[in-house]
């Protein structure tokens, strides 16, 4: 599907190298200790060994019919091998996926410094270029302007401005320096000026990849809760059928025709749920593989499974629902100011403003009023009454004034948050126009951010010109995605630091179900706990260290790769693309995983009906010729019927490997719709397919002359 293919590394389902390795692994996995993990396939293994033993005895004793037993034995072995192969394929694909991921991640190079100079200064002449992914805790790197900081660390030397917008969404650069509170830097952020020497404090993301590969490879793979429950069901069914088959021998003796043990084993293997039993672990691993395809590293299978169960999605507004930056949407003059004047001053104050908001003001001025960009010193021309607009000097935003603007001689223009600009105006004896507060409030209510523009000419008192309406731009297609989530029964909650008025308006526009305004990290935590107390599962994304507790508390906590180490450790998934919207895909993969398990279980159980109709008449037709009536597939002979069933049972595992690896097709819809579709496909299909399949194999066997 379209949304899943984004950023996907497509790999052919049966990649030759992976297939070759999986074939070797399939044989290696015959180890009984490995098979014991899967009770259903263990029973098949024991059956294969026994049948082989019987075959050998028949061969040595010269008993007729050993060829049939041999074929049975072979296909029983194949059944086990096919199941092993499925698991090995899933593992192989996961590893290949991770390898290519690792390659693509090593593009960032870091300048690693060696040795420490006597004064405690690092020798900057000899940095060694290394892959960022190979850095280890304790390594020291040098970052020059334009460099991406290769990993989380502490600044040990230097002062620099760093663009942390990738993490914080704040476009204004921050200062990072050695010592004190501002020494921590985060991987994925960018040095803008000066230089930093950083001591890496954590091993980069590769360790997470390694951890995940270990999960895929089985050494540390643990069954997930649902896998355990399903294994209990399958084991229970296996025991029930074991009883049904073992007690069949006394019944057969009563009827006057004991059945040979290999045939009983064949019936047993056909009845026990080998299809789902053989593919169960492959399905689980494939779920993690699909996560990697989405560039998401899951730290446990449990997390992937939990993703399918999520009831509530907590989404940060900035970067997830809205574009990271606000854009100017309108100019609203106050106090009777001509709109051209407001536009002109607003543009003037933004000409040299490199923030996205500033640039958007320039763009809007040009689009709506044809006001061209002026280079510094250029004349607007049409306002000759105003002196000294010859050389405007840009006044950047500062945290203390919370305003930016331009000075042109004695002419000053300022724009900023309402309270900051108003203070600037009133402090200098200016008056606040009566209609300003109405405008500011109405913009806030509509979900926008009001940016007040004021000017002061020489010694005159400053005047407020009007307001620029900065608007949060909701990302395209979000409403549809939220509608889809709602169709799946998932509630979306937007988290924002905005005031409730603004938040409500954006929530309305984006189509989320609920919002949390003026959110502090502890509010987020409280919200998660509240949702969980109501029995809901919560998923969230986060990146900052202050997100870590919430990430740990959430059932599915996806941390951004650009996030801090603390956040990564706290969550149970890492998104290498640092794309918060991906939470939706993660949920879909989780659901797909569970659906695949359920569908194949249903298919497997439904298959039994046809197998009964093949094998039961074959077993007893010699005793009761009337039972031929149950042979509704009109199979050629008892031997061909039994063999066809066993072959079908083995081949269906192979045939379903692609489904297990890819997952059943998933389209967001209400549970009842999905249920109906999968039930028809896998329930009814599971009833009918084996009738056709067994008959076909029977025809082929007869044609080839194997029976």
């Amino acid at each position: 599907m379209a949304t899943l293919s984004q950023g996907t590394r497509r790999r052919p389902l049966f990649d030759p190298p992976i297939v070759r390795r999986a074939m070797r692994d399939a044989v290696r996995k015959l180890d009984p200790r490995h098979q014991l993990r899967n009770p259903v396939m263990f029973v098949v293994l024991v059956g294969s060994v026994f049948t082989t033993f019987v075959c050998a005895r028949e061969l040595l004793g010269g008993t007729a019919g050993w060829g049939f037993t041999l074929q049975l034995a072979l296909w029983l072995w194949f059944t086990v091998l096919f199941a092993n192969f499925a698991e090995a394929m899933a593992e192989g694909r996961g590893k290949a996926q991770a390898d290519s991921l690792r390659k693509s991640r090593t593009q960032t190079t870091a300048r690693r410094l060696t040795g420490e100079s006597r004064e405690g200064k690092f020798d900057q002449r000899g940095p060694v270029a290394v892959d960022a992914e190979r850095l280890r805790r304790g390594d020291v790197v040098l970052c020059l302007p334009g460099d991406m900081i290769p990993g989380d660390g502490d600044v040990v030397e230097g002062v620099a401005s760093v663009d942390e917008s990738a993490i914080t969404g704040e476009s204004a650069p921050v200062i990072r320096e050695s010592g004190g509170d501002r020494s921590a830097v985060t991987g994925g952020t960018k040095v803008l000026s000066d230089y930093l020497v950083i001591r890496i404090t954590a091993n980069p993301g590769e360790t997470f990849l390694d951890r995940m590969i270990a999960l895929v490879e089985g050494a540390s793979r643990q069954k997930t809760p649902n896998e355990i429950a399903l294994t209990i069901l399958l084991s229970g069914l296996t025991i029930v059928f074991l009883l049904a088959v073992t007690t069949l021998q006394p019944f057969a003796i009563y009827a006057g025709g004991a059945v040979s043990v290999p045939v009983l084993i064949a019936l047993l293997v056909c009845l026990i749920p080998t299809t789902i039993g053989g593919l169960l672990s492959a399905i689980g691993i494939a779920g993690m593989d699909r996560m990697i395809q989405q560039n998401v590293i899951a730290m446990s299978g449990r997390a992937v499974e939990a993703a399918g169960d999520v009831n509530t999605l907590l989404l940060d507004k900035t970067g997830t629902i809205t574009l990271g930056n606000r854009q100017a949407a309108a100019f609203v003059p106050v106090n009777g100011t001509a709109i051209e004047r407001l536009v002109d001053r607003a543009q003037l104050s933004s000409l040299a403003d490199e923030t996205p908001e500033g640039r958007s003001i320039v763009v809007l001025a040009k689009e709506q009023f044809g006001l061209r960009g002026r280079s510094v010193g250029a004349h607007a021309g049409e306002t000759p009454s105003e002196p000294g607009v010859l050389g405007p000097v840009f006044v950047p935003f500062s945290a203390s004034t919370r305003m930016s603007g331009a000075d042109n001689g004695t002419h000053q223009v300022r724009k900023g948050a309402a309270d900051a600009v108003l203070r600037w105006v009133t402090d200098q004896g200016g008056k606040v126009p009566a209609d300003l507060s109405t405008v500011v409030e109405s913009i806030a209510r509509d979900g926008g951010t009001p940016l007040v523009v004021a000017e002061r000419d020489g010694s005159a008192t400053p005047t407020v010109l009007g307001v620029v309406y900065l608007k949060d731009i909701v990302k395209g297609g979000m409403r549809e995605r939220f509608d889809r989530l709602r169709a799946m029964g998932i509630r979306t909650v937007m988290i924002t630091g905005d005031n409730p008025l603004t938040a409500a308006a954006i929530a309305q526009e984006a189509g989320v179900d609920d919002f949390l305004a003026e959110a502090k990290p502890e509010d987020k935590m409280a919200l998660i706990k509240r949702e969980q107390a109501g029995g809901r599962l919560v998923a969230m994304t986060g990146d900052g260290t202050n997100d870590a507790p919430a990430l740990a508390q959430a059932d599915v906590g996806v941390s951004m790769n650009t996030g801090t180490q603390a956040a990564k450790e706290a969550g149970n998934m890492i998104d290498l693309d640092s794309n918060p919207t991906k939470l939706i895909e993660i949920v879909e993969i989780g659901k797909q995983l569970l659906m695949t398990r359920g569908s194949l279980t249903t298919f497997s159980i439904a298959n039994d009906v046809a197998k009964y109709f093949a094998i039961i008449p074959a077993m007893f037709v010699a005793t009761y010729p009337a039972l031929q009536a149950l042979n509704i597939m009109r199979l050629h002979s008892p031997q061909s019927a039994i063999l066809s069933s066993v072959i079908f049972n083995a081949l269906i595992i192979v045939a379903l490997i692609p489904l297990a690896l890819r997952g059943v097709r998933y389209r967001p819809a209400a549970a009842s719709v999905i249920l109906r579709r999968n039930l028809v496909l896998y329930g009814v299909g599971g009833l009918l397919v084996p009738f056709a399949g067994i008959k076909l194999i029977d025809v082929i066997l007869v044609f080839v002359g194997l029976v």
Partner: protein
Amino acid sequence: MTMNGWLQIAFFCAVLLAATKPLGLYLVRVFDGSLRFLRPIERMIYRAAGVNPDEDQHWTRYTAAMLLFSVASMLLTYAVLRLQHRLPLNPQHLAAVPDRQAFETSASFTTNTNWQSYSGESMMSYFSQMTQLAFHNFASAAVGIAVAVALVRGIARRGGEARGRLGNFWTDLTRATLYVLVPMSLVLSLAMIQQGVIQNFKPYVEVTTLEGAKQVLAMGPVASQESIKQIGTNGGGFFNANAAHPFENPTPWSNFLSVIAIFLIPSALVYYLGRAVKNVAHGWSVWAAMFLLFLGGVGVTYWSEARGNPTHAARGVDVVASATNPGGNMEGKEVRFGVANSALYAVVTTDASCGAVNAMHDSFTPLAGLVPIVNMQLGEVIFGGVGAGLYGMLIFVVLTVFIAGLMVGRTPEYLGKKIQAREVQMTMLYVLGAAASVLVFTAISSIATSGLAGRNNMGPHGFSEILYAFSSATANNGSAFAGLTGSTYWYNTQLGIATLVGRFALIVPALALGGFLAEKRVVPASVGTFPVSGPLFTLLLIGVVLIVGALTFFPALALGPIVEHLLMGAGRLF
């Protein structure tokens, strides 16, 4: 098949549907304790028994109380049967009941099976009958209802505050008896007496028949026994001929009353489920699944019986129904009931764990004989025994939710409660226990000399007799194919054990399941939740009941009734 026959079956269905909701509402009020008109009697009983009726028992304590009550009452019955020659009210000076039969009878009555391998009049003293067997008719039914109510509570209770507590066994037991079983059997007794069922303490009557022969007619308080035997799905008849006997079941109306009485409480309990879990639609969906399975059974049985035995038709016997000829297979049937009512009775009595019979199941055509066996092997979940049917069906509901629930892409939830490893474990233990008991015991008897000796017929029909017996005992039905000689050490012991396994090896996991569910938080339902109501769910539930329930027994059935049916077509009878 005749229009008249179908109309009678339709009438039965209509009355069942009409009675379900009112009686279900009554049950809701009985078990939430809001009905108090018998409060003084209740309180007296609690005080006398020394139990605290306000204790909300953890499932383990609930189970322990249930087991304690059952074991104690079973041991008491065993003791009374063994010592009846020393006890009062034994004017016939009947000897002690032999150990094997005392064991089997006490097990059978404690488990609501009422399998009888003895002839009451020649073996049971009045004291044994009145204080023990009649007592179990009420008590075993009340235990079944209590377990079902407890399991439903486990499902219904919200949040973690229930902490695995399921209510109070002693109050459930007492209320089921006082408010439900006693009043209902009282009303039914009067109706049955009106229809001519005898109710007296007279000595047996010796009469001269039209042919001039002398015949002794047995007497007794039949109507009162008859009513609780039906209402409590016990099935142990007063007379050997059970509900085929004219003094037990004299008219079509008494037949109707006794057959509807079997389904009343089981059907109402399903409505109770819907109410208790605050999802009435779910209750009706489960009910619909039961009803459709019931209709299917009646359809097959009636069709097969009305069609009769092709061998007869081939020899010129008129098997076509007409004004003067009931048609079909009338072997072993009462003329006043005919084919339709016999088929209906046989299906109802085996859908539920009643086991009362108004016709000889052994004489049914093979397919019609197959239906009762399958009904019992499914675990009697088609309305089922009082209580037992509901908790058995809930096991299948949980299985359905687990298997199909995954298909919607969530961890399966049943009414907001996650079905996880422990719940699946209990469900599978239940399924396994039932299957193992039927299959293993049948297997042993079908090759052991002592087992084979009990057969009345040879070939597949003889096998069906053994299979029927152990299916009946395990399912706590108590009806018999009536060909098997059951009063031997071999069968007394094994059938006795089968009834105990079929009861307690299943109740314990069922209560544990209830307890586990009562520990769970409730996930609020959304459109993403697996829907447990509606036609799709009903069909799914039927599918799971048939596939999981019947597939296990398909090989056995193929070698019994199925092959017999095929051979009958070829003109071979057994």
